[in-house]
């Protein structure tokens, strides 16, 4: 068990931070937003990330990966979080890539995974159906037909769902609680309608409507009715990466806030000299440290294949998510009037942080899911 980045990982972290600072600072997100870009990321940037090998970081060498693990991936996500840099790394590589890596047939891996790593195709994962994340309650139905399967139902909060080359859709194939199967639905399939859910963070989020969509048997990933385990593994990796992105965003936003506290003068003194603000800032520092430890434990547990990995991921998503609410709230409040204007980047951080907090399970969801950790002691 190791809760710090090793030498190699620190180098990757430095590289990633420099890359995003230079190639995709916050102003890039602002520009995407201001032109109401539905894709929500810059294809050119994505291309560069691919060329840097970041799509390959976590995959085994046998599949063309670098076997650098999720701690490696974490360094990229926390750096992206710092600059609110947008890319389909989460949706395509972490979420769909994990499903294909763990459960894809050789044909599926050839058709999708290799091209995904090469940057020529991207997929998006369609799981959620309700207002809040709840993969235990998937209702979208896949029924057997003579030719294969027929899928009907709605998906929401499909991250980077617009313009994807295909979607991995979680569908119910039996009434059992975990009777879920995963299907690849290629873009352009008849009966699929994609619409934009324009959220406060201005990213690419889609609603997917499936109306009697016909899916060939080869598009089923893994065994029928066995999709849940695949899905949970992929979701946990995604959650850990989201936690990393959140942690990065929170640390950066807190840094900005501290700078403001040091320099903004009111009543002839820097407002950072007011003890009430100092103590609130100190508590945020405390929580960021606790969150950081939880995050590192989650990434590490995934890489070690720890049997408590799922709970540690939930611990991280819970703790980081909770801190994130607090940091974003205090950042706005401590910036005062200027903090609620769109002129400052604070609002952009606030909005992205709040979406990340909700994504793949909010703090309430993960509190419950992390609880088994407490039975050990």
């Amino acid at each position, binding site marked *: 068990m190791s809760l710090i980045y090793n030498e190699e990982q620190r180098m990757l972290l430095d590289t990633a931070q420099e890359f995003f600072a230079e190639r995709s600072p916050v102003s890039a997100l602002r520009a995407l937003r201001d032109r109401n870009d539905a894709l929500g990321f810059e294809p050119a940037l994505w291309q560069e990330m691919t060329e840097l090998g970041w799509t390959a970081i976590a995959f085994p060498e046998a599949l063309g990966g670098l076997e650098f693990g999720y701690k490696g991936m974490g360094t990229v996500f926390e750096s992206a979080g710092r600059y609110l840099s947008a890319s389909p790394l989460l949706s395509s590589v972490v979420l769909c890539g994990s499903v294909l890596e763990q459960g894809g047939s050789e044909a599926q891996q050839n058709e999708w995974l290799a091209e995904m790593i090469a940057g020529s195709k991207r997929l998006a994962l369609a799981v*959620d159906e*309700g*207002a*809040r*994340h709840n993969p235990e309650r998937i209702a979208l139905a896949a029924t057997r037909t003579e030719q294969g399967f027929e899928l009907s139902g709605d998906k*929401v*909060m499909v991250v980077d769902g617009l313009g994807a080359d295909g979607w991995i859709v979680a569908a119910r194939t039996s009434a059992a609680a975990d009777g879920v199967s995963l299907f690849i639905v290629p873009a352009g399939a008849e009966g699929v309608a994609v*619409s*934009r*859910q*324009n*959220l*406060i*963070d*201005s990213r690419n*989020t889609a*609603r997917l409507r499936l109306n009697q969509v016909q899916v060939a048997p080869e598009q089923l990933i893994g065994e029928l009715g066995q999709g849940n385990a695949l899905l949970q593994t992929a979701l946990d990796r995604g959650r850990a990466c989201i936690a990393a992105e959140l942690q990065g965003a929170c640390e950066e936003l807190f840094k900005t806030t501290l700078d403001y506290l040091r320099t903004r*003068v*009111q*009543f*002839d003194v820097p407002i950072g000299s*007011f003890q*009430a*603000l100092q103590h609130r800032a100190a508590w945020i520092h405390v929580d960021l440290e606790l969150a950081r430890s939880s995050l590192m434990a989650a990434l590490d547990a995934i890489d070690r294949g720890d049997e408590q990995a799922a709970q540690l991921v939930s611990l991280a998503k819970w703790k980081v998510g909770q801190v994130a*609410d607090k940091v974003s*709230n205090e950042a*706005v*409040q401590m910036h*005062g*009037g*200027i*903090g*609620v*204007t*769109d*002129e400052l980047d*604070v*609002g952009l951080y*606030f*909005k992205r942080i*709040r*979406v990340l907090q*909700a994504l793949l399970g*909010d703090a*309430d*969801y993960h*509190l*419950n899911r992390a609880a088994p950790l407490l039975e050990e002691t």
Partner: protein
Amino acid sequence: MSAIETFRAETRAWLEANCPESLRGPAAAGELVWGGSQVEFANEDQRLWFERMRDRGWFCPAWPEAYGGGGLAAEEDAVLQKELKRLRCRPPQINLGIWMLGPVLLEFGTEEQKQRLLTPMTRGEVRWCQGFSEPNAGSDLANIRTTAVDEGDHFVVNGSKIWTSYGDKSDWMYALVRTDNSSPKKQEGISLLVLDMHAEGVDARPIDLISGKSSFCEVFFDNVKVSKDNLIGPLNGGWTLAKRLLQHERSAMSKFGEFSLPTHFDLMSILGKYLPDAETPSDIALRARAQAAALDEHAYNLTVQRMGEAARAGQDVSGIASIMKLVHSEQEKQKFELLVDAMGHRALGWDGDEFSEQELGISKAWLLSYTQTIAGGSSEVQLNVIAKRVLELPDAPKGGAK
């Protein structure tokens, strides 16, 4: 029948006859009439009510008739207000000039200023805005830097104001400006000036907030000429007037609140919609948090009521009054946080058809709620005031702690 009872009967009859039915009861956002040179009426009833009240002098019923006011005695004004309330008549117009600047002008203005500035107010012909805050003078208002330099027969104003509501739609502004940079106490070099928003060099730009478009403006002054008769009260004596003016702000705001119908989002009923059967432990815990917040709101409403009773009984309510703004704005913020927790991504929509009008309304109101704990005296300032004035905790002595 006593004279006042006669007045009451006549007033009631007049209001019954003249206040259109459609203008009784609270107004939805955007349904209020703002007086001014570009006054707009959404319908004929609004125009009628505006003109009838104006012609009776009841935009400003207690002001002297000499300036177009109604000339009512305090007792009569009280009766009128009560009757207006009884019929739930909406104000015929909203005008910061009348509510905030007017009383100060009546007290401190010259006869010429009263004639020139009050009369158009009583006719609803001029829309006023407030120019107090500046980028570097938020909580610390005395820190303003917008200057008015004496150029003989006029001042030349340079600088900028921020958080001016409807600055782009107003005709005139009352503003705090710095007329003396040399005084050791910042408060002593400030004057109160009124100025024409249509004058050359004035530029009002709406501010985008994290919640989107807003009615707040930043107003820039680039060598704006303001003739000297627009100085209200003594030169460098503006701080006292500003404090007086801000005392009218709370009552103005509460008047505004009485008649506008802010889109109220009821926590528990919306929560019930999104968490219809709270089954999982985390949903149940979330509902318990929401119940606690809603009960706290209930306790706040009881406190408003108690304060009213205590005030009517002649008790000192300064300790209760001091908590109102703080509690209300913090509770609102907390309420929206809980709604966001319960509604998940349904509360995170920005625009488009994917979200209902109520959902988008909640998102915007949530983001806007962050403004409430900052504007009009931030929560931190409120806490300072409570600590020092109500709890009588000491100031940090000169020299400070080590």
